[in-house]
């Protein structure tokens, strides 16, 4: 019933139009090599600031889902994965393309993306309200533990660069302490600059880290991809449908499960799913030489990852990856705090968002089978034209948050920091996670200590607190194991 209400909200007014536009823009930007779905969210989120929060979040969901699915277009047609999550798609997708079956590979990839996304969306809609109800029983110590659980993600996303990842996370925490202290109201590190009183704005920082830093990376290296025309349509034969069905649902389940693990991300989901698919290979399967099931495995998993990643984000406010961190930053700007209270206080918002997840996945398929030719033409534009446009979006986007030129300066500073971090092989994601999680960790730790008269050991007498810590340890081990096994495949 609530979902039905969510659909009614989406189909009223401008909301459906916003999902239509968001998904299309997401697919185009996701298809452009070098522009990830995180970057698409970073540069397009400012377009939504003036919108009603429901219209805005539905558009952002379209960008997020379209961005992940769009990566397969360049992976299949150009052998350049538009997003890291589509790297596994390129293996079989491009082989099929060279064999003259690019249209079939694209159709299958969009079908897999849509089914994977719908599957994970259904899981999200079923489970999230129950998990959120559990979240209502949480108090400050539990929220502190959730913050620590979020920080444990840094261990997994830092890969081999653990110390560098920790250093970057600490840098993020340091930046997050700028501004008024959340408990005492004391100004820290503001140097009497009124622009710093409320701390560093998330959105300009994220636009700089993910948008401008990418532009810096390509200033020496512009290129133009060769475009192809797809004038013919190919339908899947019934035996091909039967062949891909098993892989489709298995990969959707894998993608949803991995997505729900904070820190794992869509790239791990697609590689893990591809690995499992090759283990289930039959005699006549041609993995690595143009196998449709290879495309299905990767694409179903990376889009199914979206619904999975939204579970910890919506229920506890934990960003599992770059895209969900961006969505949390956006929600905070709109005055909405993701977590169990969002389900209680803003059910219209939550259910419209869930409905938009399902709609965007259907649109991915419809756009995919009808607009591939046009999207390939757009992504074949030289980067020397695309990147100055991205800079303009970054500049205006960071201004639009607070209508303040100071934010543009901050965005540029974070752009340079992001570029330098990448140059010296430091991961960027821990900085972003620390920026988002620091206020949650600090304020809840200190509130919890006030509750227990400065005795931290009392936290350990709370069973949910201990349960979350145990979950954190399990997550660290499982994600490190997943990353190790997917690195072996990749």
């Amino acid at each position, binding site marked *: 019933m609530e979902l039905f209400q969510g659909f009614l909200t989406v189909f009223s007014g401008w909301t459906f139009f916003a999902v239509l536009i968001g998904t299309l823009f997401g697919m185009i930007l996701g298809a452009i090599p070098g522009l990830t779905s995180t970057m698409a969210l970073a540069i397009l989120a*400012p*377009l939504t*600031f*003036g919108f009603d929060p429901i219209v805005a979040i539905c558009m952002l969901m379209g960008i997020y889902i379209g961005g992940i699915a769009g990566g397969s277009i360049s992976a299949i047609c150009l052998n350049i994965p538009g997003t890291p999550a589509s790297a596994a798609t390129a293996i079989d997708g491009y082989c099929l393309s060279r064999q003259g079956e690019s249209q079939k590979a694209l159709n299958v990839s969009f079908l897999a993306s849509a089914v994977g996304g719908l599957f994970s969306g259904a899981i999200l809609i079923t489970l999230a309200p129950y998990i959120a109800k559990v979240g209502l029983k949480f108090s400050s110590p539990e929220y502190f533990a959730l913050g620590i659980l979020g920080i444990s993600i840094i261990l997994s996303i830092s890969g081999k660069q653990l*110390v*560098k990842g*920790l*250093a970057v996370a*600490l*840098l993020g*925490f*340091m930046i997050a*302490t700028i501004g008024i*202290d959340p*408990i*005492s109201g*004391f100004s*820290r*590190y503001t140097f009497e600059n009124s622009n710093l009183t409320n701390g560093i704005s998330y959105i300009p920082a994220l636009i700089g880290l993910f948008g401008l830093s990418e*532009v*810096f*990376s*390509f*200033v*020496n*290296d*512009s290129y133009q991809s060769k475009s192809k025309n797809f004038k013919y349509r190919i339908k899947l034969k019934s035996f091909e449908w039967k062949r891909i069905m098993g892989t489709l649902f298995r990969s959707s389940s894998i993608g949803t499960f991995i997505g729900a693990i904070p820190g794992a991300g869509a790239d791990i989901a697609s590689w893990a799913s591809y690995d499992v698919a090759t283990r289930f290979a039959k005699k006549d399967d041609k993995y690595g030489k143009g196998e449709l099931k290879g495309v299905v495995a990767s694409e179903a998993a990376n889009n199914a990852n979206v619904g999975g990643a939204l579970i910890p984000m919506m229920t506890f406010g934990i960003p599992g990856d770059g895209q969900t961190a961006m969505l949390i930053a956006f929600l905070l700007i709109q005055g909405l705090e993701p977590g169990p209270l969002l389900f209680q206080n803003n059910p219209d918002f939550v259910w419209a968002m869930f409905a938009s997840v399902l709609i965007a996945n259907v649109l991915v398929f419809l756009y995919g089978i009808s607009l591939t030719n046009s999207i390939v033409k757009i992504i074949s534009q030289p*980067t*020397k*034209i695309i*990147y*100055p*446009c991205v*800079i*303009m*979006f970054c*500049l*205006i986007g960071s*201004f*639009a948050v607070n*209508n303040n*030129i100071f934010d*543009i*300066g901050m965005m*540029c500073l974070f752009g*340079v920091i992001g*570029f330098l971090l*990448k*140059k*010296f092989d430091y991961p960027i994601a821990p900085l972003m996670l620390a920026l988002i999680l*620091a206020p949650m960790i*600090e304020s809840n730790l*200190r*509130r919890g*200590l*006030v509750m227990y*008269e*400065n005795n931290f050991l009392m936290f350990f007498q709370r069973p949910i607190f201990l349960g979350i810590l145990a979950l954190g340890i399990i997550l660290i081990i499982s994600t490190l194991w997943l990353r190790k096994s997917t690195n072996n495949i990749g």
Partner: protein
Amino acid sequence: MKYSFFNREAVIGWALFLLSIIYGFLAIGFPKGGNEPGPSFLPLVLSGGMLVCSLIIVFKHRKVEEAKEENPAFRIGRKHLFLVIYLAIYLILLPVIGFIGMSLIFLFLTFRLYDNKGIFRPIIYSVILTFSMYGLFKLFLNVPLDLM
């Protein structure tokens, strides 16, 4: 194998070390809390953590490795410097010249920086992009670009 505490990677470690000292030093001046740790608690913990991390980075990278082939995208060159200068000029002159005038100049220079040869093409691209952005953000989305 040569050892040095001042190679490129180790220098970043030293920079982080210095940052942690300054950050921690400023935190000492913050008030202490009563029945909770107070505003200085987290900064002091972070400062200590960064101190340890920076020293690990310095020691880990003290070996001077033979020059590795660097990703050309991350090689800092003249163009990076120019882009930073253009952005700085944009920020400084924006309140003086205004959004349209400053964006036209900035975009012309940026299109040239991204290897768009000649004069006319960069001019046409800059004009189209500036006015499309103005139309989209100012007229459609009501972002007060006049304040820029």
